[in-house]
């Protein structure tokens, strides 16, 4: 099984920086990053205009289904998915086998430009992801693994008090 994904402020800032730059470079409306299980990690652009939680979960479902299709025909993966709409388009790509980079853009950009910029940003994101994974492993081996190590039964009960 993969290690749990743990994100600290430092990596979050670096990821957000990469996404912001990608959004500008690709002239995109929204750029965001989710993990393959549908958890949203970070975003840039007009993210308050959309329901990002749903977007994240559906993107992950979409990628999972496409992965399934790939395996059925003997492909390792389809690393890029592209959905073309009348106004907006969605470009989805896999980063480092466990993250999904989503770029939403309209006529102010083009598929070619997005693809080009995504490639560059992906390499950077992959480096950050590796860092996160090695950090998670280190922390996992140390004592103070999770912030939940000290939660009490009362804390948990309190969540369900209503």
């Amino acid at each position, binding site marked *: *099984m*993969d290690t*749990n*994904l*743990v*994100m*600290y*402020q430092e*990596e*979050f*800032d670096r990821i957000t920086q990469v996404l912001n730059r990608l959004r500008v470079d690709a002239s995109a409306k929204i750029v965001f990053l989710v*993990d*393959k*299980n*549908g*958890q949203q*990690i970070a975003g840039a652009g007009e993210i308050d205009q959309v*329901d990002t*939680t*749903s977007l994240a*979960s*559906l993107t992950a*479902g979409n990628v*999972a*289904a496409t*992965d*399934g299709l790939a395996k059925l025909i003997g492909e390792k993966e389809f690393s890029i998915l592209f959905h073309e709409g009348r106004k907006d388009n969605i470009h989805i790509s896999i980063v480092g086998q466990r993250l999904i980079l989503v770029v939403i853009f309209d006529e102010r950009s083009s598929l070619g430009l997005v693809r080009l910029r995504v490639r560059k940003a992906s390499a950077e994101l992959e480096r950050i992801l590796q860092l996160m994974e090695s950090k998670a492993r280190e922390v996992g081996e140390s004592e103070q*693994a*999770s*912030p*939940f*190590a*000290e*939660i009490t039964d009362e*804390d*948990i009960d*309190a*969540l*369900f008090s209503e």
Partner: protein
Amino acid sequence: MSFINYAAREINVKIVYYGPGLGGKTTNLQHIYERSNPKQKGKLISLATETDRTLFFDFLPLDLGSVRGFKTRFHLYTVPGQVFYDASRKLILKGVDGVVFVADSQEVRMDANVESMRNLEVNLTENGYDLKEIPYALQLNKRDLPTAVPVEEMYRVLNFKGEPTFEAVATEGRGVFETLKAVAKQVLYELRRR
């Protein structure tokens, strides 16, 4: 596989509702959606066929409040119950933190319950999990139906590790939150253990 985000101070966990077709998995989520505070819940997404059979999954994000300064966000998913959607079921179990098995109490569905539970075990194993280890709750749904099998018998057939078991009538909301709480608690305990 939970995702701990120190930057946003939140923890995301994934709960999957599993069980035979037409057993009430989607109804569980619908009830949770209807009865939750609007501030706590996101949109309920159902990828269903025109006849309201789940085609891929239902999804409901739910904020349960904070523990030690961390927001707890539960992502609830259902799987399509119909046997031939097995490939989709397997995908949805990826990254799961806890499972609710929704069993159909009707006598004619007992075989389907058993088959679905075996299928759950196989699909968990293929995703690298063990049904005996994972946070898990059993729900005996449709207790209001006249053909419902006695609870003791269902317990004997379906309960395999003394997991928390709840009688439910999901259409009326009976037992729905109790089941969710039971599995959510186990997930949080699991986080503490790690």
